[in-house]
């Protein structure tokens, strides 16, 4: 058996284990062990992957395996990774790991919470290791449905509305995707579902013209493509902490990854032809998301809109259609995943203490809970692109890549998208100034305590990852760049 299957097998085993648990201690034990194993596995995979590449292996996908599943439709369970999926697997395992620790003290129905959490991880990991369209789509949907119950049961605020909206919109996206996948399969000659083999079969351009928008929008909904982003603010704001982390940190990356792996990779001609529509839309996502974040007063809404803006940038970069921008897009997915997870973790911890997320009702938290406050500042700085943290590397690469397109339209759009950096600085600094510095608004807040061990642990792991990418970006970007290079149809 291929060891990549462990990424699916471990959460499945966790799921079975959780069914048998009797108390909180056992639940924690299973989840902590399982998520640590996943993290170790992802780290080992990264080292093995880099080792293979250094040894001169230039296959597009490494560690591949394939087994026939549904022969009449050429469906295989086929897996394999390249630099992009390794980066995403690493990101997912870090966030699942830290998510487990931020949910350490969950009170209502912990067993069920972690059951759905595990199902979500099965979907996410399965998606990133699959190289078969059908299997990929199946894992994609597996990742979506647990969201409904996770938000609906454990969420806060308008949770039922938000959960329903999120589920229906994302499933609407996947309905388009399903038609797109069937189109790809039959238009390419109905001989294979394997992504790499499909790329070699040419899909007629007439077909591409309608399949491309279907698949791009289908994945784009999850990647917060304007105007299909409206689920994101409500969903993120209502979700419990670990779920917001996983959702903004990993699930939205499924969208970007899918747009690249399926829409652009399999239908390059239509992608070139129709990209202008989607560049406009993603440009709106980037700028509009950032502006919306300025006026919000709820901490989670601020970050949700900021996610719309940052994830819009991922899709924007993908559509710029060159290697540099593409590498930047993957870097941005990684960076945004980590930093937004850190944000949501910290917001969850602050909310757990102050019981409010309204920035007008809080202030001076730096004195009261210095650890959390410093974490927040670091996340904020990463978000606005301070050199030395991951955000800078990613956005720099994207804009450099985007500007390489010589025509006016691309350049103008790039400049407009660039302005989002300034706006990001505005809303981040506004929150930091009001929330962390300033005077203590509420006297009761003075009795609050700082982070406890499991919270500190989660925060530190995330900060290390962010700084690790920011300070030494080359090992990641080389890995990604190599794969983009080998896949790119130039």
């Amino acid at each position: 058996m291929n060891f990549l299957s462990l990424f699916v097998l471990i959460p499945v085993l966790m799921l079975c284990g959780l069914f048998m648990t009797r108390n909180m201690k056992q639940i924690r034990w299973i989840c902590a062990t399982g998520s640590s194993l996943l993290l170790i596995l992802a780290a080992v995979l990264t080292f093995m992957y880099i080792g293979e590449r250094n040894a001169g292996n230039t296959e597009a996908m490494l560690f591949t395996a394939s087994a026939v599943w549904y022969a009449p439709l050429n469906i295989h369970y086929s897996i394999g990774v390249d630099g992009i999926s390794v980066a995403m697997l690493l990101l997912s395992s870090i966030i699942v790991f830290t998510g487990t620790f931020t949910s350490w003290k969950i009170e209502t129905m912990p067993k069920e919470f972690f059951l759905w959490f595990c199902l979500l991880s099965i979907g996410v990991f399965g998606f990133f290791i699959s190289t078969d369209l059908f299997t990929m789509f199946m894992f994609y949907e597996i990742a979506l449905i647990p969201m409904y119950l996770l938000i609906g049961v454990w969420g806060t605020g308008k949770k039922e509305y938000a959960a329903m909206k999120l589920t229906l919109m994302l499933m609407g996206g996947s309905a388009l995707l399903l038609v797109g996948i069937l189109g790809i399969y039959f238009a390419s000659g109905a001989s294979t579902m394997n992504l790499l083999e499909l790329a070699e079969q040419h899909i007629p351009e007439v077909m591409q013209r309608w399949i491309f928008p279907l698949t791009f929008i289908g994945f784009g909904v999850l990647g917060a493509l304007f105007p299909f982003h409206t689920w994101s603010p409500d969903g993120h704001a209502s979700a419990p902490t670990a779920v917001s982390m996983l959702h903004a940190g990993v699930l939205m990356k499924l969208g970007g990854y899918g747009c690249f792996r399926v829409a652009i990779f399999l239908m390059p001609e239509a992608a070139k032809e129709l990209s202008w529509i989607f560049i406009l839309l993603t440009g709106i996502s980037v700028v509009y998301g950032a502006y919306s974040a300025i006026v919000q007063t709820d901490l989670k809404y601020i970050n949700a809109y900021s996610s719309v803006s940052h994830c819009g940038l991922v899709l924007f970069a993908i559509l710029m259609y060159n290697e540099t921008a593409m590498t930047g897009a993957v870097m941005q997915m990684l960076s945004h995943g980590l930093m937004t997870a850190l944000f949501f973790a910290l917001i969850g911890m602050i909310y757990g203490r102050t019981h409010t997320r309204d920035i007008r009702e809080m202030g001076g938290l730096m004195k009261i809970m210095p650890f959390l406050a410093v974490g927040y500042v670091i996340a904020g700085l990463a978000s606005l692109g301070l050199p030395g943290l991951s955000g800078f590397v990613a956005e720099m690469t994207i804009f450099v890549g985007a500007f390489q397109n010589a025509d006016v339209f691309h350049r103008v759009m790039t400049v407009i998208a660039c302005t989002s950096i300034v706006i990001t600085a505005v809303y981040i600094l506004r929150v930091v100034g009001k929330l962390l510095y300033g005077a203590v608004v509420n006297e009761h807040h003075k009795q609050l305590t700082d982070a406890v061990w499991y919270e500190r642990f989660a925060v530190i792991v995330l900060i290390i990852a962010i700084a690790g990418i920011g300070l030494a970006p080359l090992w990641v970007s080389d890995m990604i760049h190599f794969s983009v290079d080998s896949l790119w149809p130039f």
Partner: protein
Amino acid sequence: MGYSNFLFLKEELSLIAVMVILLVYDIFGSKKSLNYFHPVACVLFLAHTLLNLFPSEASEAFGGMIINTPMGDIVKTILNVGTLIVLLQARNWLHSEAVLIRRGEFYFILFSTLLGMYFMISSGNFLMFFIGLEMASIPTAVLAAYDKYKHDTAEAGAKYILSAAFASGLSLYGISLIYGTTGTLYFADLPAHIDGSTLQIMAFAFFAVGLFFKISLVPFHLWTADVYQGAPTTVTAYLSVISKGAGAFVLMTILYKVFGNLIDEWRTICYALIVLTITVANLFAIRQQNLKRFLAYSSISQAGYILLGVISGNELGMTSLVYYILVYMISNLAIFGVIGIIEHRTGKITINDYNGLYKTNPRLSFVMMLALFSLAGIPPFAGFFSKFFIFAAAAQEGFYVLVLIACLNTIISLYYYLLVVKAMFINKNDTPIETVHSDAYTRISLVACTIGVIALGLISAIYEQLGTFSFGI
């Protein structure tokens, strides 16, 4: 004609044997021994199912009146499994005071409708088909009215018999027109005579409407909701899966075998019916409060999806259709099992009653949720696979727009399925349904359904086996 022809009816004969044994047992059994009536019935039927589990070779008997195909045998097996599950779930209701004295007939009537479906499936002649259709419909009306002192139930029985009789009449008229234009009623001879004249198209339309009634496609669905709501839950379960499944399969085989020349015409008709059925039924389902009515509309919309397999007219379509029927049957029966036991113990049947069910009945709610997800087409449950394959079958013939419409409709259906999940898991309730203890029979049926819902999709062997027996036009 030799008596050896009867050998080809072995499945029908073994069912008749079961019926006769039960009838004799019911009449002559001592009061004490009748306590074992239900288990004996289940075991006998299980034996019948196992005896006919595997498909036999394709064969013809009685001069082409009966045509057995391996695929038909498989569908019969699927119907058997479904009926067995229905039987298991029927125990509580059959042992309630009002029904107990009429218990024996239930099995006889139930099995005779099943026998009618067998005849429909293996018919090689329109007359044989019509006998099967009547045999399947008329006793069903008796079943629907089984709780005859309940107002709703009597209404359901009357509605069913009237609409079934009307539908059969239309069908028969269509058949007579077919005979008038071609001079034969044998399926084997008909394709050569079908040339697409206006009269034949009309004949086809009349004939098909009878079956459309049976599988309740919009606009022939108006009886469905009332009958489903009024009939005893067990009978509703039987109606919604077994009789619908058989109807859909027979429709497909006749369209493939007999009306292959009219493919353009019936494709147009099916196209319109699919769009109407799926959309209208989904929109109506959103507003339902009574779970049985809710499931009625949900099953109408599922019938629309089943028709996607028919419209494709290819091999993949047949495989996917039979697989879809199997998966739909297992998922729907799981839901009916849960609803039935809760209705029997507490009398509660509306969605609001189910608020907070998870707190008191975690297992039942869990089973119901899995089954609802399967109906909605969420992986990794079997419904996802069956939907994907049936969409693939339609897409193979280029019906992309139709598939898109159907896909978008799955979102509406997901919405109302989630409403039930929401009631069970999220909504708060001060007076939730008390903890319900199910009996061993129901439990066995629910466990079987749950395993089916999970395993049917993940294990590809069943689908691939079905594929080896399929044929297209």
